């Protein structure tokens, strides 16, 4: 007798990056972030569209769900909030009074919201924030057993968790609790350097190589007591995040000799030095925790999740240190991934579903993280035809050839093929592609397409089989979560006086050609690598392989398909709008190819540069 499949829905919401994920019999079926549908970056609202997308992908009715799991425990969070308010005193009251009613209306009424959305009474379970992260790191990983490290801002109480996973499930060994938080320490510097918390951390990491870690000692002496086993405590008198929205206080500002940088003002050498310093301290902390975890668990494999696990520079260092033999990081390491973890917790812990076998030895169970919605050729054609947009229909082979050919002649291509990525990185399903050999690619893509800060580097997508030609990277990096050094052989010498006359002039440094792949070589000769194989993403692999045929270089520039502040495009209409609003030359949507020169005048009724709040 066949048993009914056990479908478990995981949901994360109400903080930032709401998402839903669906696991069937222990295998992820779908996962999506709400922001992609609502077009509001980091949308924290109850993820009605993402839930819909998950059920749509599985083609199931809501009543077929065995249960739904919320990624954290709202009562524990409330406990932390109330205690924090009590501890912080009167100063904290106004901001909490403002935020608390909304919080209570949503988190505590999760079941009601879900019932309203699905029109069904289904069993509702609650996980814990870091347990969800741990599950999202372990269950989809390739390993039968692994040590688990989760680090982020804060969950209910935990901010850092050291755990272990194997056939018997997940066991949390140690945790560090709020307010001591490595994630919030990094966010404090993010805000101090003029970037937005919960989205600007990535920029701070990108800025770090332009600076020197001259403040690292000061951070260790005054802000964090970091111990050999990786445990730590923050000097809370320098921070304001317990009392409200601001991360830092006057004591912090005094320590670094000045107020925070104004947002969108010119980035100074000091900001780069601060970035380099907090990056160094973060890496040190992560390495200490990893060493301790290895010793404590004896595991050879490490898996990671939580927002700090998106720090691919630290991840790269961790890999090269060789503390663990193998490393796997959940690509949706932030709160969105908590939805996936929650679904796994429900599936394996509550419903006792056995873990599925990995698709092949060494391969993970994340399906390349291509877990979001896709659009059929018919849907694309109907959109293009309705608006009489000129296009060419191309076969899969022609698509690869035409895309590669456009890239090889220096054109920038918007590429939208297949299911969208789950997680913050574009992995070739919703990507803007460029020629990595061109010195102009970085500035053109940053300033005329992405409309973002010019210092920000671009990442390479490289054929897995060609990765060793360009990067010192021993393992696969399918999720763009590892930074690796560019090979010595392709590096170029840089004029030693570049930017010397004005140390705040980052542009001068950016414009230095550092390798034969200048568009993806960061200022410190590193690159945030995505290796591409022909299994999870054959269409993208074919594009890069064709590019290799044409140029001898099996590598392209890959940036997320959006403009600054915009969530990654999801639908053909999103892609077309972004294509027409920017200097992209070619748009590929499934088996349709559009050239900018052939498109009719685009009448943009929206003031789009104000449509997206700058991140």
């Amino acid at each position: 007798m066949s048993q009914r499949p056990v479908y478990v829905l995981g949901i994360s919401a109400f903080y930032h990056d709401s998402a839903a994920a669906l696991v069937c019999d222990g295998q992820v079926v779908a996962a999506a972030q709400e922001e992609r549908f609502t077009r509001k970056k980091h949308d924290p609202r109850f993820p009605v569209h993402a839930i819909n997308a998950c059920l749509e992908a599985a083609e199931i009715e809501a009543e077929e769900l065995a249960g739904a799991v919320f990624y954290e425990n709202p009562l524990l969070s409330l406990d932390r909030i109330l205690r924090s308010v009590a501890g912080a005193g009167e100063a904290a009251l106004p901001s909490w009074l403002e935020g608390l009613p909304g919080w209570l209306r949503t988190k505590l009424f999760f079941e009601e919201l879900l019932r309203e959305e699905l029109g069904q009474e289904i069993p509702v379970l609650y996980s814990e924030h870091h347990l969800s992260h741990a599950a999202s790191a372990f269950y989809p990983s390739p390993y039968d057993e692994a040590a688990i490290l989760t680090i982020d801002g804060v969950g209910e109480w935990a901010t850092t968790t050291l755990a272990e996973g194997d056939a018997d499930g997940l066991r949390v060994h140690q945790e560090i609790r709020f307010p001591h938080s490595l994630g919030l320490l990094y966010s404090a510097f993010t805000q101090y350097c003029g970037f937005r918390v919960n989205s600007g951390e990535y920029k701070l990491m990108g800025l770090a190589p332009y600076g020197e870690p001259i403040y690292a000692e000061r951070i260790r002496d005054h802000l964090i007591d970091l111990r050999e086993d990786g445990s730590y405590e923050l000097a809370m008198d320098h921070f304001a995040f317990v009392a409200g929205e601001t991360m830092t206080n006057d004591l912090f500002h005094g320590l670094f000799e000045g107020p925070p940088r104004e947002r969108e003002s010119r980035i100074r050498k000091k900001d780069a030095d601060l970035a380099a310093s907090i990056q160094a301290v973060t890496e040190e902390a992560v390495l200490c925790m990893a060493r301790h975890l290895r010793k404590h668990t004896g595991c050879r494999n490490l898996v990671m999740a939580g927002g700090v696990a998106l720090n691919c520079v630290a991840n790269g260092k961790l890999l090269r240190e060789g503390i663990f033999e193998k490393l796997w990081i959940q690509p949706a390491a932030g709160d969105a991934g908590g939805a996936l973890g929650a679904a796994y917790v429900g599936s394996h812990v509550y419903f006792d579903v056995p873990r599925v076998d990995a698709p092949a030895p060494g391969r993970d169970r994340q399906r390349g993280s291509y877990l979001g919605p896709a659009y059929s050729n018919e849907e694309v054609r109907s959109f293009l035809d309705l608006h009489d947009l000129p296009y060419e229909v191309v076969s899969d082979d022609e698509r690869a050839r035409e895309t590669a050919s456009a890239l090889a002649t220096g054109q920038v291509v918007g590429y939208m093929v297949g299911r969208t990525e789950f997680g913050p990185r574009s992995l070739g399903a919703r990507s803007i592609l460029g020629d990595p050999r061109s010195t102009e690619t970085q500035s053109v893509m940053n300033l005329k397409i992405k409309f973002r800060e010019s210092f920000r580097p671009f990442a390479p997508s490289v054929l897995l089989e060609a990765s060793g030609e360009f990067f010192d990277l021993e393992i696969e990096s399918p999720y763009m979560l590892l930074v690796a050094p560019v090979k010595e052989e392709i590096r170029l010498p840089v004029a030693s006086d570049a930017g010397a006359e004005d140390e705040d002039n980052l542009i001068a440094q950016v414009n230095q050609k550092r390798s034969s792949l200048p568009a993806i070589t960061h200022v410190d000769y590193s690159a945030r690598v995505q290796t591409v194989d022909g299994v999870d993403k054959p269409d993208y692999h074919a594009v890069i392989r064709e590019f290799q045929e044409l140029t001898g270089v099996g590598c392209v520039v890959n940036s997320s398909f959006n403009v600054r502040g915009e969530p990654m495009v999801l639908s053909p209409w999103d892609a077309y709008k972004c294509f027409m609003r920017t200097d992209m030359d070619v748009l590929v949507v499934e088996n349709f190819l559009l050239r900018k020169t052939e498109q009719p005048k685009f009448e943009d009724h929206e003031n789009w540069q104000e449509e997206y709040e700058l991140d």
Partner: protein
Amino acid sequence: MGRNLFEHHPILGYRFVPGLRARVRHEGGGYLVRCNQAGFRCDHEAKRERPSGQRRLLLFGDSFTAGEGVSNRFRFGDLLEARAPDLQVLNFGLPGSGTDQQYLAYREFARKLEADALLLCPMVENVRRNLDTHRLTQSATNGQLVLRAKPYFTLEDGGLQLHHQPVPKNVVAKSEFEEAGHVSNLRQVETVASPLRTRWRALGAELDTRLPGVRGFSRRLRGVRWPMDYEDPRSPGWKMMAAILERWITEAQAPVLLAPLPTTDHVMGDLVAEGIHARFAELAERSGAQFVDVLPALRSEPRNVLRRFRFAKDDHPTRLGHGLLAAALSEAVAEVLPRAKRVAA
């Protein structure tokens, strides 16, 4: 924005995106939409030959038939199919359509298909849609309501004259539309969406909650009839609908069941349906179709069951409503199909 369910079609005005797989959020909890390559919400491909050993019913109508609010397998067409193991139902339901577009769907997509019977299910409200030249629809790109052309017929010298072929794609500006004197559901939509109407509906809903059945009772006492087009056989709405249906029934290559679908208010007995019954019965009589009146079977259900015939806000039938419709239709369908086999033999 959700997925776009429809695409432009030069004959019908629009159809479902062929091959679409989608889930639509809805007050009932959401529903799954699965379409065939012909662009209709049907699990079967519309192949010319009927499957070996099976009888085939071609089903036409609007969103009631297409099943807005419920997944494919819970619609009355699919439930009819589930009741008879050797029956294939091809669903050509087109949401928002008039009888004109439903007839064009038959001509364009179904006329050449092998079939044992046609089941025409015009929703009684469709009588007004046949007079519209444009319809207010939701934009695929920004979700705004926009006016788009639809195909429509006029009666000229007693014959039907088809217009808007091919159906223009462009969106019509409201000002341009009003100047040209086109007919559409614009005023109807605007009236429905007006603050006063919204408030009125809210009050009505409140009354239904506090004093269930009072409004219906009041209507029954007053003998309210609606739509009024059915009260006079010479009304423009009915004349147009009758002309289209007569032509359709004449052209059909198989027996036709004519089963107008009532609104919930008709089902509950809150609105008088005598005019509707009379018009469709007369039409069936003169055209050779078989009139199927689903109201007696539906009204035989207890009122507390009938209250769940439709969704709380959305007028469309719930799963239960579709189940009741299938039960009400099943006898007539069962009767006509063996006869069809004999005819075919």
